[in-house]
């Protein structure tokens, strides 16, 4: 185990730190054999990288790759509020917690041999802030008023206020090599050779990128925090899931990250050469109700249809058990998740009673309820490129028929679907959110917000959302988030369908693999293949990386 893994995790929450709080580092998975250097990991990824220049990248798949070439000052633990060492060994808050100082590990160099210093951190923050860069997380830097290099190995961030995510915001921007980019205008950085031939500072070095074909990284033998065990990682771009499934089963590919469709899970699980990793992922699927629609203005209708939704059946049938019934918008990967909130039960009898209490009765015996001359018949929209969501609509159509509601499925091209959602041009819609690191509900449930397409307007909820976001005390904030979520659940703006597991299949020869909510590559620099089981003989290139040149 490398030295940096022995250090305890550090909490990012100022208040907890003041009380001497801390956390444990990520748990290691069991391993067999003696750790050995060598071999190659072949990863099958669905799409090509957009860029390897971190500030302009918007693809999670790209950051999976360049996240091994570039490291951040601190690296997140799976709960996203505790940190493990990265390029910095540790950090500290000053007395009023308005400054955070990071202490960089001595001896780290860029892959071209130049030393990595605090100036590179300061430089990167300037790049991320430049309007020409279009850095999508630029608003995370809003509270940072100053970044200064105290000395070559110490960098200090100053904030305009104390808040919960001071460290998170400080480490979001990857340090960049000032000696290469210092003279390049911001507008030209995205097109600079470094965007496709990165010169990083992490455990793996860039070897090659053949567009649409593959990206190759190799172990950085000079990494002062410890050379990774694997000699190479080759990311093969394979868009077709059937082909990728074939390749992992015949051994051409070693890792199939984010296995989709879930129907592949039992197939891979029964393969003795593969190991499956499955854990709650960072996204959830929901059924949104347009509360401005005459049918769904009455929350009893929304509640009744939630009661009529057999969500466990969806998890069992569509996810092959690899998921959890949804309960709330702040899912289990976020610190503000409230495990005491129970999901609405599947109770068709109560659903029928609630609909009748709301005045919806089947008077003509056609199986569909009516009220004031209007039938309980509505459209349910989703995007046609997501097979699972189309299946959900079909299953719900059957389940709602049993309580006297008629669903008319409408499937749309993705951009059209999003446009109609944002325009509130829908009655019911099956969609999903990928949840970020921070607890935030205002964008989706705050009055007047563009993503509040369900038109959530409960007065208490609207008061709680901004209050919870600015509350610094973690326990107090948790209580506020819990109350807000209980209102959202009771109002049934959404029927929370499920939280899908992240599933990854990997060849059984790889040891010490720890995958978790942080991502499948959480400790990739510690993976190894015991000598007797190594498959590829790929030597390391001892020369440093030369930008735009041959090594």
């Amino acid at each position, binding site marked *: 185990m490398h030295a940096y893994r022995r250090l305890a995790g550090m909490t990012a929450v100022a208040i907890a730190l003041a009380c001497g709080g801390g956390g444990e580092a990520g748990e290691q998975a069991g391993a067999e054999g003696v750790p050995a250097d060598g071999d*190659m990991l*072949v990863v099958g990824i669905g*799409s*090509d990288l*957009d*860029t390897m*220049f971190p500030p*302009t990248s*918007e693809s999670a798949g790209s950051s999976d790759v360049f996240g091994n070439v570039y490291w951040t000052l601190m690296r997140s633990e799976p709960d996203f509020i505790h940190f493990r060492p990265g390029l910095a060994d540790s950090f500290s808050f000053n007395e009023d917690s308005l400054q955070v100082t990071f202490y960089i590990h001595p001896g780290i160099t860029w892959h071209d041999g130049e030393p990595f210093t605090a100036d590179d951190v300061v430089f990167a923050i300037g790049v991320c802030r430049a*309007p*020409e860069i*279009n*850095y*999508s*997380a*630029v*608003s995370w830097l809003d509270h940072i008023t100053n970044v200064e290099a105290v000395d070559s190995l110490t960098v200090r961030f100053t904030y305009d206020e104390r808040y919960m995510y001071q460290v998170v915001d400080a480490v979001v921007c990857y340090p960049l090599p000032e000696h290469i980019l210092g003279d390049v205008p911001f507008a030209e950085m*995205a*097109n600079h050779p470094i*965007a*496709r031939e990165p010169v990083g500072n992490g455990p793996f070095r860039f070897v090659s990128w*053949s*567009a*649409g*074909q*593959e990206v190759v990284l190799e172990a950085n033998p000079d990494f002062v925090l410890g050379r990774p065990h694997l000699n190479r990682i*080759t990311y*093969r*771009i*394979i*868009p*077709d899931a*059937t*082909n990728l499934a*074939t*390749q992992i*089963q*015949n051994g*051409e590919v070693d890792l199939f990250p984010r296995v989709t469709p879930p129907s592949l899970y039992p197939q891979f699980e029964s393969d003795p050469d593969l190991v499956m990793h499955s854990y709650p992922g960072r996204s959830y699927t929901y059924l949104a109700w347009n509360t401005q629609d005459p049918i769904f203005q009455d929350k009893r209708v929304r509640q009744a249809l939630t009661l009529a939704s057999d969500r466990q059946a969806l998890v069992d049938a569509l996810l092959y058990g690899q998921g959890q019934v949804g309960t709330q918008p702040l899912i289990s990967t976020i610190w503000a998740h409230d495990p005491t909130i129970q999901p609405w039960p599947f109770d068709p009898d109560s659903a029928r009673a609630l609909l009748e209490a709301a005045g919806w009765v089947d008077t003509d015996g056609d199986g569909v309820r009516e009220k004031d001359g209007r039938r309980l018949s509505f459209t349910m929209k989703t995007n046609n*490129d997501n097979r699972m969501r189309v299946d959900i609509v079909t299953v719900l159509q059957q389940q709602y028929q049993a309580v006297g509601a008629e669903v008319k499925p409408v499937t749309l*091209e*993705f*951009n*059209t679907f*999003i*446009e109609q959602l*944002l325009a509130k041009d829908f009655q019911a819609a099956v969609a999903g*959110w*990928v949840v*970020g690191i*921070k607890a*935030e509900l205002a*964008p*989706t449930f705050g009055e007047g917000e*563009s*993503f509040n397409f369900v038109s959530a307007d409960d007065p208490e909820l609207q008061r709680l959302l901004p209050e919870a976001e600015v509350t610094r005390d973690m326990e107090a904030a948790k209580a506020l988030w819990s109350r807000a979520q209980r209102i959202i659940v009771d109002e049934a703006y959404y029927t929370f369908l499920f939280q899908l597991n992240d599933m990854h299949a990997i060849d059984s020869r790889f040891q010490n693999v720890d995958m978790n909510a942080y991502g499948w590559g959480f400790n990739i620099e510690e993976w190894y293949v015991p000598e007797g089981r190594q498959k*590829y*003989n*790929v030597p390391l290139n001892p020369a440093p990386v030369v930008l735009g040149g041959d090594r």
Partner: protein
Amino acid sequence: MIGYILKRTLQAIPILLGASTLIFFLMHAAPGDPTSIYIRPDIDPIVIEQMRKNLGLDQPVHIQYVRWLSSFARGDFGFSFSQKRPIIDIIKDTLPNTLLLSSVALVIIFALGVLVGTIQAVRQYSWVDNVATVGAFFFYSMPSFWFGLMLILLLSYKFQLLPASQMTSVNFEFLPASDQWVDRLKHLLMPAMALGIGSAASVARYMRSGMLEQIRQDYVRTARAKGLSERVVIFKHAMRNALIPVITLLGLTLPFLVGGAVLIETIFAWPGMGRLIVTAIFQRDYPVVLAIAFVSSIMVILGSLIADILYSVVDPRVRVDEGEA
């Protein structure tokens, strides 16, 4: 001949301009734009507005069109919104791959189609002809993507004879030079077969009927009466005339190969233009779609021109320079 080529080239300019303009406005009429992928609750709408401004998407469509056209006319295809690099670099990466795949598929189509069609005609109503007829209809009616998947399951998964995707193996750079050629060929075989087999079946049908028509002609009977061997009669006399309808197919097949490659390139992870345009359409990467549409249009026009020129080669009665093609 040169005059004819020049004339056709000049005629192509308004066609290319019209096609590109149509695609430009159709793309912009579709919902969403390249910043749609950024529409998420955790991204500030102000950031998205800044991106739209930086990309020039905040301008009216007609202004965007004029800007695009003026840079296009100067040979500047622009910058990819999604790949964040010059489009000319992307085309340099992908076009050779598509041409390689299409060329091999083309060889399979015509070599196999002409050979099978000729044998069928010569052995009309024999068991060889019957089997080939059934086979031709089977492959012709089979979608290429399905055939591709079946090939993967059979040749890659079941028998592990050929690699399932990509242009080279993961350890390509460590192979000796001679093995590198073999490796490339092995990766090319399945996608080229999947792309070409349906069209080869079609060519075989045309070839069979063309050849049957020719071998009943008086000049063939005369050739036989002169004592020429059957091989010379078939391959030197009859085949040349039987090829004329097949050459018509050649012109029509070139654009089909680019279109058909969309699915095949996706299934076999072949980094060509077909896969690129699909991704670009979904990501609303307007400049990439326009550039690829432009290159594809050129290939269509070029295919048609090649077919016309080949007519004159196989049929001296056709004189392209007199505009009689």
